């Protein structure tokens, strides 16, 4: 069993990285909400309830990292698509660099332990 404090740390890590996972999913093409949410939901352990992605999308839009626009759908009514802005792309690039450094360093320590 994981102590509550550690569990909250893992929750915080997940929350913090989730927004960059959203940005990453949008870097190649715009996506509509349901598609984005289902793709994220397929990643193990990242999202417990799909609905919580929408407040995050609202936040990203307010911060200017994402914009939305309406596009025709092959079936049914038009859909709201989420798209990366230039600022969003820069934020993702900065995070990716930092993430690589961070995970490399942590991985090395976790795997090697005390050995040189």
């Amino acid at each position, binding site marked *: 069993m994981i102590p509550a404090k550690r569990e909250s740390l893992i929750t915080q890590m997940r929350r913090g990285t989730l927004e960059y996972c959203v940005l990453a999913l949008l870097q190649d093409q715009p996506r*509509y*909400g*349901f*598609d984005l*949410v289902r793709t994220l*939901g397929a990643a193990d352990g990242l999202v*417990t*309830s*799909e*609905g*919580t992605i*929408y*407040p*995050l*999308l*609202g*936040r990203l839009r*307010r911060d200017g990292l994402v914009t939305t626009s309406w596009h025709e759908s092959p*079936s*049914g*009514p038009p*859909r*709201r698509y989420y798209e990366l802005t230039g600022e969003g792309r820069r934020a993702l690039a900065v995070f990716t660099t930092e993430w690589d450094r961070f995970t490399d360093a942590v991985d090395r320590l976790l795997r090697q332990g005390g050995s040189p």
Partner: protein
Amino acid sequence: MTTEADALILRYLQDLEGELRDLPANRRQELLDEVGEHIAAARAALDPETEAGVRTMLERLGDPADIAAEARERFGVQRPPARPATPWLEVIAIVLLVIPFVGWVVGVVLVWLSRLWTTRDKLIGTLGGMSWVLAGLGIVMAEVTSTPLAQSGSDSPVGQPHLETTGPGLPEVVLVAAPFVLPVLAAIYLGVRLRGRDAAASAPPS
């Protein structure tokens, strides 16, 4: 079957709207729209649509309370503390603070139990009321020290040592008045802070 599904979805969206009431109206509407669109797209993907399928879809979407909690956190909206319209605990604490000794002790306990005042407010309330205790000590000290002083006075008749003085000086007035004034000031301060909090809590979020 469709009507059952419609009823489930309607109830879900109503629950969500209720949970989102602390959010600014435009944020709330935006989220309701987006979740509504998600549901519409998910329904379109269900083929054939069954009640069980709709239930599963809503379960995956999650508890409306969780979505609202996430929204409050992402948008920095404080959830107003659930409390009665009149903060009785705080009102009683303020009244007790100006009653000497026992009233003050109980009042201080209530002040520290309150969640509406900051630690600084509570300290001011406690220290202000504490002058009752200091006054009590002061009276005892005065009793102890004045007797030998009066007797050691050179030529003033014993029993009326103070009659020949020019009346109480300012420091004495302050010393005597402070124990009565300070608790009242502290109580007024706590009252003002309480009102300030009420106003801030009931103001619409920006």
